[in-house]
């Protein structure tokens, strides 16, 4: 398989903040890559460089064999981009938005119109086709935005946090649309903060932190690194946390994480509900009040703790809001 996207040694600084510190990645033609990282890790900066919106300070990026700087126009003709915020003209109707984008891709008028109708149908927006986008819900705007990026039948689609801010139902619908596109052979680079989302949609994942790649592989590779499940307890009193951690230690393969403020305890375990039952048995008759207990799959925060020793929340360098980068402590190491 050939690579649809090749990125080598990409670097970008905003003032004193280093947004990208030598990123390498490739995306095979027809596959889906999940670019995973917390806010400010540099995901959006990678997308903006690949979509010709931003110039890198160093490194090289190719999309369908075209250099994103030298052949910027040809790259633009081959890609579709859906940014973090739905970039639709709210005064135009859904149909007018898509027709305009089609015309700007230089489709003949008739084709732009028929393509607009097709995509509105496909994204469940036919009923709202003649209403100004101002009246659309968040989920509808996001769908219209993705439809706009598909007008030209792009070979490569960039989706920057396509489900951020969507309600759970719209998120599921969006996942289905993305999966359909991937099945149709479109190469997709998708950024997300959610391990679950990347796991569900992506063939391969690249995890970045502070502008550097810290892990790459399939979802299973990553989960194998992070390991097992998380057993989580919320107690009524924070003083009981050490006692619970001590009693449950035999069940875990690593020490428990506790948080006094939220009175929560998280324990990495192998196994399923039988571990949960065992844990509850170990806490019987000791007079500790448990408010909430559950078993969950590892999330991005767990990946970060395992790979970097710090949580995802501490990772931000602020580069995603790249107009005004906010330097963060430890951002430029």
């Amino acid at each position, binding site marked *: 398989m050939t690579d649809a996207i090749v990125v080598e040694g990409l670097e970008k600084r905003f003032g004193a903040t280093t947004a990208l510190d030598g990123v390498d990645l490739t995306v095979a033609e027809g596959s889906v890559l999940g670019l995973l990282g917390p806010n400010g890790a540099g995901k959006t900066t990678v997308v903006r460089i690949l979509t010709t919106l931003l110039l890198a300070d160093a490194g090289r990026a190719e999309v369908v064999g075209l250099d994103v700087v030298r052949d910027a126009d040809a790259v633009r003709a081959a890609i579709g*981009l859906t940014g973090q915020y739905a970039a639709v003209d709210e005064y135009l109707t859904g149909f007018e938005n898509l027709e305009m984008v089609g015309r700007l891709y230089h489709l003949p008028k008739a084709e732009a119109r028929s393509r607009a109708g097709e995509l509105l149908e496909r994204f469940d927006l036919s009923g709202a086709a003649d209403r100004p986008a101002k009246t659309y819900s968040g989920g509808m705007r996001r769908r219209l935005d993705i439809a706009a990026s598909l007008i030209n039948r792009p070979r490569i689609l960039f989706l920057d946090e396509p489900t951020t801010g969507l309600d759970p139902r719209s998120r599921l619908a969006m996942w289905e649309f993305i999966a359909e596109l991937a099945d149709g052979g479109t190469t997709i680079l998708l950024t997300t903060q959610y391990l679950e989302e990347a796991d569900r949609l992506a063939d391969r994942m690249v995890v970045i932190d502070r502008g550097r790649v810290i892990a790459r592989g399939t979802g299973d590779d990553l989960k194998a690194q992070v390991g097992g499940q998380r057993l989580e307890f919320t107690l009524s009193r924070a003083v009981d946390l050490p006692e619970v951690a001590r009693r449950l230690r035999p069940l875990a393969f690593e020490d428990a994480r506790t948080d006094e403020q939220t009175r929560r305890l998280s324990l990495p375990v192998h196994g399923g509900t039988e571990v949960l039952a065992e844990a509850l048995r170990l806490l019987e008759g000791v007079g500790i009040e448990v408010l909430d207990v559950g078993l969950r799959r590892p999330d991005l925060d767990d990946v970060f703790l395992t790979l970097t020793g710090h949580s995802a929340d501490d990772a931000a360098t602020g580069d995603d809001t790249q107009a005004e980068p906010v330097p963060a402590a430890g951002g430029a190491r």
Partner: protein
Amino acid sequence: MTTLAMAVSDSLTITRRNLIKVKRVPDLIVFATLSPIMFVLLFRYVFGSAIPIPDGLNYAEFLLPGIFAQTVIFGSTITGASLAEDLQKGLIDRFRSLPMARSAVLIGRTVADLLLNVLTIAVMMITGFVVGWRIHTSIGEAILGVLLLLTFAYAMSWVMAFVGLLVRTPEVVNNASFIVIFPITFIANTFVPIDNFPAVLKAFAEWNPVSAVVQGARELFGNVVPGAPEPNGWALQNPVLYVFIWVAIFLAVFVPLAVRTYRRTAGR
């Protein structure tokens, strides 16, 4: 498609998009025309009685070309504010990711605002007729007068396009441009004759391109006293030529500057 054909087609697409907004948000056009009507009435009837003007001319005739100029110049802030709004909403990012001409968003914007100004001038001329303003020259000269106003406003639109892309917040564009546009439209012959200005302001007013726009429009509409002495200074003696020199300078400087900023700018 050739580069030129592409630029024309893309600019038309963007112009159309901007005009659809005018259609969908009629308040825009209502307020854009109400305020000049209000200005005409205020100056004509409130200040008009107190402002001494050259003999043989009624104040409406003196005033209207000034109001035309001030209004179309203020209209240029719409260019800057609209671009800042597009930036904020991420639309500029979308446009920049499309294989379209790099100048089209700016050309489409300024052309749409030019068409808006045509409408505004028409409304003001009608209001002017109602309060006693008249054209005393030929149709050709009158059309030239309108073109002079529109051309200068179009050049100002490019200045504001650059400001809008730089400032990036529509509200700030509005406030910032008022700070500049108020003085340049008031320290001029727009509403009062400049002969009694203090020396420094008088010199400024004599070389202020807005004065030349107004003087040029007055001459082309025939709103000057026949046989009156020539105004002071080369600029006001050759107002049309002087205005076109400014237009050329504005366009030569700000078209490339605005396009360059557009290419490098980034939303949010």
